[in-house]
């Protein structure tokens, strides 16, 4: 019997790559756990990307609500997350 899937706070790109790493090193596991723990402070996380920008840039966002209950961010309740940049292969077309 398989256990129910637990939603991961890690970005989709990371969970996808993880599936292809047959024997992750201890160091990479430590880093992944650290990032996972940090991102678990974001409630109802969601990811999106913006594409079709000049220069072939694709902007990635991971956002969620910093929760007082989870992280004790009483003074700064609101949304937080990460922003990243990728470059689309279409740039070369």
């Amino acid at each position, binding site marked *: 019997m398989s256990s129910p899937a637990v939603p991961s706070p890690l970005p989709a790109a990371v969970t996808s790559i993880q599936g292809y790493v047959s024997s992750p090193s201890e160091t*990479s596991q430590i880093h992944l756990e650290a*990032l996972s723990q940090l991102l678990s402070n974001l409630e109802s996380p969601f990811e999106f990307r913006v594409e079709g920008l000049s220069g072939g840039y694709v902007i990635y*966002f991971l956002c969620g609500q910093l929760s007082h209950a989870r992280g004790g961010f009483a003074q700064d309740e609101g949304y*937080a997350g990460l922003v990243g*940049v*990728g470059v689309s292969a279409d740039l070369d077309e």
Partner: protein
Amino acid sequence: MACSNYLSVLQSHLNPTMIPGGSPPSPGMAPAPKPHIIPLNALNSKSEFIVQTSATTHAPPALIHGVWNTLSVLTSRSTSLSYAPTHCTLVASGDGNKAELASHTLSFLEETTRASFEVASTLLCGSVLAGKTSESDEYGDVGLWIGDLKHGTATDVLKRLGLDSWLKQGAKVGPGSPSLCTSSVLPLYN
């Protein structure tokens, strides 16, 4: 006089979250220094940015380069973004957002920037959000404070960050990093 100047400099470099017993300061104590936040378009040249960030955060050079590259893409596109140089963190500074953030919130976002860098380095890519779908690994992930949102949607996030003009110019919003199943880089991991 010199001593008080020294103490003030020292205090400005201390991370309040590392001070034991982080209870509110007792009456008479000097309040904790406010984290420094500057408009994104007021950043110095790349060389100055790298030197200053290295001196204040002691972050790895590759992390600092990645953060700079990401900031440089966003700088010309939003006037509602600010940056906390001592925490490698972007802060939405548009209407209605607080001008200041608590140190522990900035520390959390700095840790997120650093943890993303470590994971991205492990996975041989630049960004944990873009993964291996990007043609470049020169752009690092940066911790982001968005603030209050009416709805937790992509459109609201972009509005808050002053980046909603992208949508008017024909940019498209999609889900996060697309599935890597079709990526040509995957054989590296087989």
